[in-house]
């Protein structure tokens, strides 16, 4: 295919077909390619030199992708899909892209079969009898769909473990399974908490602005009827701003009894409007925001459990927070951010690092809230080295380990007025 033959109908058609297959191939690899993209790609290809592989590559990449994280996948796909002739031939072999296409089509058909079988598989899994789960597990699943579900795409189910019913193996590192009945209650609590956090931000603005601002536009409109004399002054106040909340959760061994509850809580937070991000850590930190965007809590926890293998390891709060500061704080934290750290403060790392990392974090953020599940339990005082190191930088500490303590948190937030720095 060269520039000339492109102008012919056949040439055009075969190129479009090739692009569509390539785009679908990319989609199968996790890159979202829409029908609109195909159109744009064709337009772009008519502008460039088709015999120049590099130009072809750049053009396709600029149109089909929108994230550098996709580059590697794209490069591999591109390399295996498009065949370029060697020896300076003018034409590129678009009509028969590669054996890759045939393989892809075969794989796609296999995937489809597997997925059909798989959906039954998921049902089976939720029916797996566990001593702690009640018989109305099926009912709970249905309820979870209605409570949590808005139609969004199911993340691609990966890994044989899901299909063979070995899912239990990964999630058993999380002690217990998510309690879906409680999820609705948790969600309600979290709704209120987030509203409190947002209100705190708004109140701060009001208190600082002793003068009030005037809405000039409305003022003029209203006073036109008085022929130019300004009689009514219309004021305006600041809108409630959406909170920016960052949750950083300790999921190490000592936190095991609380992990599932904490993750359910995080899931609720993530469904709130505003910029909410979540992370989990034990010896290192991982961003979990994209996982919680899933409509099904089960699946979200599955994927997290599968991708984060450090559940029952030691705890390195300092190192994890330092990693967070390095990789994410610049883009995610600003003076209005509320950072919520959920941890028992029991650390096997260096307390000095905790102190340093917390200091850095405090410098950038507006408020740091520390939720300690052990707080309030008889005999516990926050005296571990880790906790002591973090204490000076914490604005507000509260217990959280179940629904009643979550309720308590909401009550406290309502009464207290968080003094942001």
């Amino acid at each position, binding site marked *: 295919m060269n520039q000339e033959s492109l102008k012919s109908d056949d040439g055009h058609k075969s190129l479009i077909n090739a692009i569509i297959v390539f785009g679908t191939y990319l989609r199968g690899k996790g890159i979202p390619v829409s029908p609109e993209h195909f159109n744009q790609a064709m337009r772009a290809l008519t502008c460039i030199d088709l015999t120049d592989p590099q130009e072809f590559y750049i053009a396709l990449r600029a*149109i089909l992708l929108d994230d550098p994280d996709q580059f590697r996948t794209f490069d591999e796909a591109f390399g295996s899909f498009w065949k370029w002739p060697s020896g300076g031939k003018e034409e590129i072999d678009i009509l028969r892209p590669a054996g890759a296409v045939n393989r892809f089509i075969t794989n796609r058909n296999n995937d489809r079969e597997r997925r059909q079988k798989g959906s039954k598989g998921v049902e089976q899994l939720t029916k797996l009898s566990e001593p702690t789960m009640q018989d109305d597990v099926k009912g709970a699943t249905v309820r979870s769909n209605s409570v949590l579900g808005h139609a969004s795409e199911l993340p691609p189910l990966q890994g044989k473990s899901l299909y063979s019913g070995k899912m239990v193996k990964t999630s058993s590192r999380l002690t217990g399974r998510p309690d879906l009945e409680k999820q609705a209650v948790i969600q309600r609590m979290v709704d209120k908490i987030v509203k409190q956090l947002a209100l705190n931000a708004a109140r701060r603005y009001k208190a600082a602005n002793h003068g009030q601002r005037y809405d000039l536009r409305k003022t003029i409109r209203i006073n036109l009827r008085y022929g*130019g004399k300004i009689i009514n002054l219309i004021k305006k106040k600041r809108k409630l701003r959406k909170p920016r909340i960052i949750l950083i959760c300790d999921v190490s061994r000592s936190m095991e009894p609380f992990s599932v509850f904490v993750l359910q809580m995080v899931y609720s937070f993530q469904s709130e409007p505003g910029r909410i991000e979540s992370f989990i850590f034990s010896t290192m930190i991982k961003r979990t925001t994209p996982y919680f965007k899933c409509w099904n809590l089960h699946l979200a926890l599955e994927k997290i459990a599968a991708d984060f293998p450090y559940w029952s390891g030691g705890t390195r709060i300092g190192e994890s927070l330092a990693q967070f500061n390095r990789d994410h704080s610049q883009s995610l934290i600003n003076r209005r951010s509320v950072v919520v750290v959920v941890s028992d403060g029991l650390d096997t790392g260096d307390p000095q690092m905790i102190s340093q990392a917390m200091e850095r974090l405090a410098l950038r953020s507006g408020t740091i809230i520390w939720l300690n599940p052990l707080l309030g339990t008889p005999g516990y005082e926050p005296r571990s080295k880790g906790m002591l190191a973090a204490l000076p930088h914490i604005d507000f500490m509260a217990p959280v380990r179940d629904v009643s303590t979550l309720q308590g948190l909401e009550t406290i937030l309502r009464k207290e007025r968080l003094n942001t720095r």
Partner: protein
Amino acid sequence: MIEGVKRTIELMEAEQYIVDRTTATSVFLAVEMKKPLLVEGYAGVGKTEIAKVLAAALNTRLIRLQCYEGLDVATTIYEWNYPKQILRLTIENDSKRSEREKEELIFSESFLLKRPLLESITELKKSPVLLIDEIDRADEEFEAFLLELLSDFQVTIPELGTIHAKHRPYVILTSNRTRALSDALKRRCVYLWMDYPDFKKELKILKTRIPRLNAYLAQQIVEFMQVIRRLPLNKTPGAAETVEWATSLMLLHADHLDPDLIVDTLGYIVKEHDDLLQLSRQRVLSILTELSKLEAGEACDGTILEEVAGFVMQEKVK
């Protein structure tokens, strides 16, 4: 390479902007297909400059909208000049004009403050370049009405009616990737990712921007910068920092790098206290030592330097 892309490279380099093939092709495609160009990348790699250079190359006006959270219609599209209106109303107090006439008077174009987005579609002579800088700092609501504008290029002002663009602007959006942009917006754009420059590009940038810079010093500077960028710094320096640093070194009449000189001028490349601590004199000395081993053709240790070694050697061979 198609003529268009070649021409794009020529035009941009004529404006002192060193451009690689990917950038030139993406810019060319955006202009040719009349789509907005979304440029993402770290700070200091030259995203904003693309717009300036494009405007100069096309010999047209650059209109810039700097984004921040809370942008709204009044700050981006238009606002009525309220003080002027009030003043006029007061003057007209005793005039014989009717209420209706007064209203028409104060809601006319001379009382309209045009903000960047409106300005960009009311250019009379030719299509301007509209730079929407740091769109990731604005919020989702702004993205939504920006999208509307980008599809129709028209704006409706209740008192004046609908204003259509006589010349559609070339739109360039930049983002620092501090948050994910909406899919709808990304789909509409041609996407360009700008990474930190590689050794070859950075050297070329220095040579173009500072022609009188000592060639040996330039090479040393770029080698050093390439190593620095691979360290775990809190704020990695971009190409802009390299140019500033080189200028300062030239002003100090340096013709080669030594540890004391570097430590004294670190403030040009590293802007955070913790990063400064990381680049102690000791560290700087060891980096320089390794780099000089590289130049002498000896083996050097450290994985960072091995990486740097690879392409430095390639360049030297050329």
